[in-house]
């Protein structure tokens, strides 16, 4: 049977996953292998060096850089308080005395006799890394972090914005193709992850932010709404650091697109349970897709999984991911091996997709996504 390699997103009601939780700089790991951890438990922490402030002592005192040592009241490494004297001249007439006070509380980092700059460093900033998912510590990477293992439902979205968050999953839309309205989101959805059907409109997103929802999951979002929400036009799909008040994950793409049935089923199966979500998306070099992880101890009776890159064979379900049939679902009817010329005159490998209404379409293989394995 003919096969084709095609990418897909993972969607499963039960799987085992590992997540690396690494510090930005070396520090202390405070859990050990085998420890049970909650999503909000700190697993590693470190101190980031404090920010730097500068004091141009020579300009302020009207001296040469080579003379700076004579006028400094503090040495390198000494602590200083904001407003404390750093350096001063001692003229015969005190009225002419010039002083330089520290602009910050911290330590004197360097005193340069070449540039006349004094660099001051603020106190270190503590940074903690949390477990992000409920699970067990599977590995400790000495001084750097841990690997947390968990099991449960796992859904990869196609695109997201906003970082890590968690909360109970609440189904807002009745069906995968419904477009929800802002009035369907209530104050009790504070802290929840909301499943919102085929389109997250700007009004719905604003309402979700207003009530303090942890996240919004939808089939699609309009590019203009995203621009309005972010305040800029997203040029490159590298996201995860946006601070817009909630995390958004779209499962299908831009525009109004129903959430794929099985994705919707898995999300509905998580309703009432806590999910850890992350909108971070990176499509270039080291693909990272947004994710929804809802840990549970036992696999559900109807556990199923699909997605992931792999072979495609006749009979497999696919989704078309580019015009003219963008968003339509069907099954592979044929995988002809010869190259075909499509309307744009591009010569490509194609497959034949059969739709549920009995019609068929010839589509470039690059323009379908596997939704089963």
């Amino acid at each position: 049977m003919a096969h084709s390699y095609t990418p897909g997103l993972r969607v499963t009601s039960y799987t085992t996953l590992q997540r690396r939780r690494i510090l930005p700089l070396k520090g202390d790991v405070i859990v050990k292998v085998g420890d049970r951890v909650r999503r909000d438990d700190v697993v590693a922490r470190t101190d980031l060096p404090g920010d730097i402030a500068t004091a141009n002592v020579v300009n302020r005192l009207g001296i040469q850089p080579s003379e700076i040592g004579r006028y400094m009241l503090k040495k390198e490494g000494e602590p200083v308080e904001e407003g404390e004297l750093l350096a001063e001249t001692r003229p015969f007439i005190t009225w002419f005395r010039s002083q330089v006070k520290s602009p910050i509380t911290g330590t004197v980092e360097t005193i340069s006799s070449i540039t006349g700059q004094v660099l001051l460093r603020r106190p270190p900033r503590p940074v903690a890394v949390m477990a992000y998912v409920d699970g067990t510590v599977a590995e400790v990477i000495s001084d750097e972090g841990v690997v947390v293992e968990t099991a449960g439902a796992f859904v990869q979205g196609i695109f997201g914005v906003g970082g890590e968050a968690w909360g109970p999953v609440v189904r807002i839309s009745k069906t995968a193709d419904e477009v929800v309205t802002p009035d369907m989101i209530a104050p009790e959805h504070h802290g929840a992850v909301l499943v919102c059907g085929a389109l997250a409109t700007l009004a719905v997103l604003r309402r979700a932010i207003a009530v303090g929802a942890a996240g919004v999951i939808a089939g699609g979002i309009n590019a203009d709404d995203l621009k309005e929400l972010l305040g800029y036009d997203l040029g490159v799909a590298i996201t995860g650091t946006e601070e817009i008040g909630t995390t958004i994950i779209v499962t299908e793409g831009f525009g109004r697109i129903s959430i794929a049935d099985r994705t919707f089923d898995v999300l509905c199966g998580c309703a009432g349970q806590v999910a850890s979500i992350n909108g971070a998306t990176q499509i270039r070099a080291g693909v990272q897709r947004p994710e929804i992880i809802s840990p549970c101890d036992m696999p559900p009776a109807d556990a199923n999984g699909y997605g992931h890159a792999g072979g495609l064979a006749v009979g497999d379900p696919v989704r078309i991911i580019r015009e003219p049939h963008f968003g339509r679902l069907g099954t592979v009817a044929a995988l002809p091996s010869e190259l075909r010329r499509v309307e744009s005159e591009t010569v490509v490998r194609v497959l034949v997709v059969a739709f549920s209404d009995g019609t068929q379409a010839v589509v470039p293989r690059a323009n379908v996504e596997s939704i089963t394995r």
Partner: protein
Amino acid sequence: MSQSANLNVIIATDCGSTTTKAILIENVDGVYRQTYRGEAPTTVEAPFEDVTRGVLNAIQEVEELSGRTILDGERIIAPARDGRGVDIYISTSSAGGGLQMMVAGVVKSMTGESAQRCALGAGAIVMDVLASNDGRLPHQKIERIRQLRPDMVLLSGGTDGGTISHVVELAEYIAAADPKPRFGIGFRLPVIYAGNRDARADIERILGEKAELTVTDNIRPTLERENLQPARLKIHDLFLEHVMAQAPGYKKLMSWTGAPIMPTPGAVGLIMQTIARNQGINVVGVDIGGATTDVFSVFDGVFNRTVSANLGLSYSISNVLAEAGLANIMRWVPFDIDQQDLRNRIKNKMIRPTTIPQLLAELKIEQAIAREALRLAFIQHKQLAVGLKGVAKERTLSDVFAAEAAESLIDMMRLDLLVGSGGVLSHAPRRQQAMQMMIDAFQPEGVTRLAVDSIFMMPHLGVLSTVNERAATEVFDRDCMIYLGTCVAPRGKGKPGAKACDWEIALSGGATERGELAAGDLRRVPLGLDETAMLRANPARGWDLGAGPGKPIEAILHGGVAGIVLDGRGRPIQMAEDRARQVQQILTWNRATDQYPA
């Protein structure tokens, strides 16, 4: 560099961000030819995390197609014996995001710019240019250095014997930021110092313990001279020693290659320089990828390269829309489309970058976006490919520091060859489309030959040129370049329909074609590959084909798969302001050059 003459079979790979491409080059009857190619997904990322896996897969495809045994298990057989193996294996790499650098110089438009040119020419992406006069406060500079986490820093500043305080100040900022490299949490960041030699001792004192410091010759020893090569070589060394060595599998890969692995754009730059030198011509090359667009130029022997990090046709396509604006894209599209729908389509391409246009309308939109990406990348290139600033000339001081647009080394009238590369150009369904995209974006003037890289083998040939220049140039001429034809474009402006020039093309078979090119006209004259013709043209008053306004020219035209394009649309191209007329204009141009099916 020493050249190996006894190379008959060569396997070369380019490990890109997504695909590893292998080509086989063989000496066939005394001439080097590229004979087979294979490709496989790059395997730098999880779950493989070993670049050699993708290399072996790509070579295996070459084995299957060629029938030649190259691998013995997971080892490349070298040298070749009894019809098995290869004489040398060479490679370039841009996997893992390529080489990302931060550069620093004292004056932004002088040593800052020299440092930028140095890093770009070595194949790096420049994340930021730090300068004493860049307008940022000291703590902002320090915060920025800390945030970026580059692979490497190039610190320059000051002419030899000049003042040292400013460059020392920059070193102090770098030391205070104590930046960490992108790869390897416990490693020290490589810093190259290529500034005022009198400051070396101070730089070593300040950075010696905090960074992996390398000291080399000043890139700007005097205001009048730029000396980029020693620092570029150091960048390549450190790229191999520090950056590559951290990437998964590269230590093994380095042990396989018969020449140092080069950053992909560095290798492309090398082959461009070789071609320009050997043929004595001025060249502009462009490689438009999914994420970035690289532009290379060699004018009067001076090489420049820029990379527009966020101008590309898949990962970065949405950024082209953001930077160019919808109106600039739509001016190339001969139909109207709902804006919301168009923006959604572009964003969908961004998140699913491997899809291809099935509909003709989608192809036209994608090629319109390509024109704008190329145009913007070329603007950036022209801004950096300039003569040295701050050099004493017969001008006032304010002139020296004034906007330098006029000093760009890129003179489109003197451009001999424009080479395009990247999927949208190399794989355009019709070659005329590639030719027209490049003409519209670059707007060559006078007589300019155009070509595309058939299968993006310029990186392979660049690194090959370091071991065997003859092999590299022979393959470049015979297999790499697909000559599209020649563009004849008088520079000037005129009312639509008014005469721009009279032209006469004498074909090699004796036939002659002649006509009048009017302002706003675009015409195509077929002239096949390996054919030449003699052009005699008489520009109207105010129009210039290279000899001066209104002066006649004679030139040899080289044919190609698309032929000759006579472009009377003016420079810059005069587009109709009114949208309805604009649509008619584009339809007329497309028909004239047989761009799309009717």
